[in-house]
């Protein structure tokens, strides 16, 4: 299932996938896979993404 919340939060901060990937120290493909729902990140990566996007875990990853 696509993670549209994360995608819209990234777009709201005007960040590209590559920029978010750099902030989280992962590859752009990993961010792309999370947004497309192809990969379930671990809690540590979820926290890194939340910090980069100034959001909480609930806001980005809770259904």
């Amino acid at each position, binding site marked *: 299932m696509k993670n549209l919340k994360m995608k819209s939060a990234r777009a709201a901060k005007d960040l*590209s*996938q590559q920029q978010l*990937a750099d902030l989280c*120290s*992962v*590859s752009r*493909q*990993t961010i*792309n*896979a999370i947004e497309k729902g192809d*990969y379930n*990140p*671990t809690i*540590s*990566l979820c926290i890194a993404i939340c910090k980069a996007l100034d959001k909480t875990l609930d806001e980005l990853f809770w259904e």
Partner: protein
Amino acid sequence: MSSYTSGIIAGAGLILTIFIVSLIVRLKLKKGNDHYDERQVLVRGNGYKISFMTVLLLNIIYAGFFYGPTRDIVAPQLVLLAIPFIGVAEYTIYCIFNDAYVGVGQKTGKWIILILFVIVSNTLCAIYTNEPGLSDNGFATGGSINAMIALVFGVILIAFLIKHFIDKRGDANEES
């Protein structure tokens, strides 16, 4: 000590020195670089698993079928060298197509240049070797090993280029 043996020892020493120096340089450059991509690690783990099973299966096939009248079809050492090369190629291609080969912050161009260097140097060695044929009395010749390395890296390079082409055309680069 023959000149061949001293040449082998000198070559091994040179390779070991280059390896240690490059390792030290790499460790120095890596300081403060804390990139860790869990998805890539996961993909690499899956790749290891698949290539390990393939190597195991090929060894069983070789052990099962290359006895009796079929045992002289191919030199044993050639097969024993070819099987790990197949495993390496499979693992690498799996990683390439799942975006896990090139690490975070690494440049694809650098890898392509390195692969090209391996292909060219091994092809030249295979062409200009003084040992004719692929095998001699059950043993693989030096030229055949060079040819196998060039072939495997050639396949890896083709996989790299196909993946690059797919990424250019497909939705992998799409941000929307």
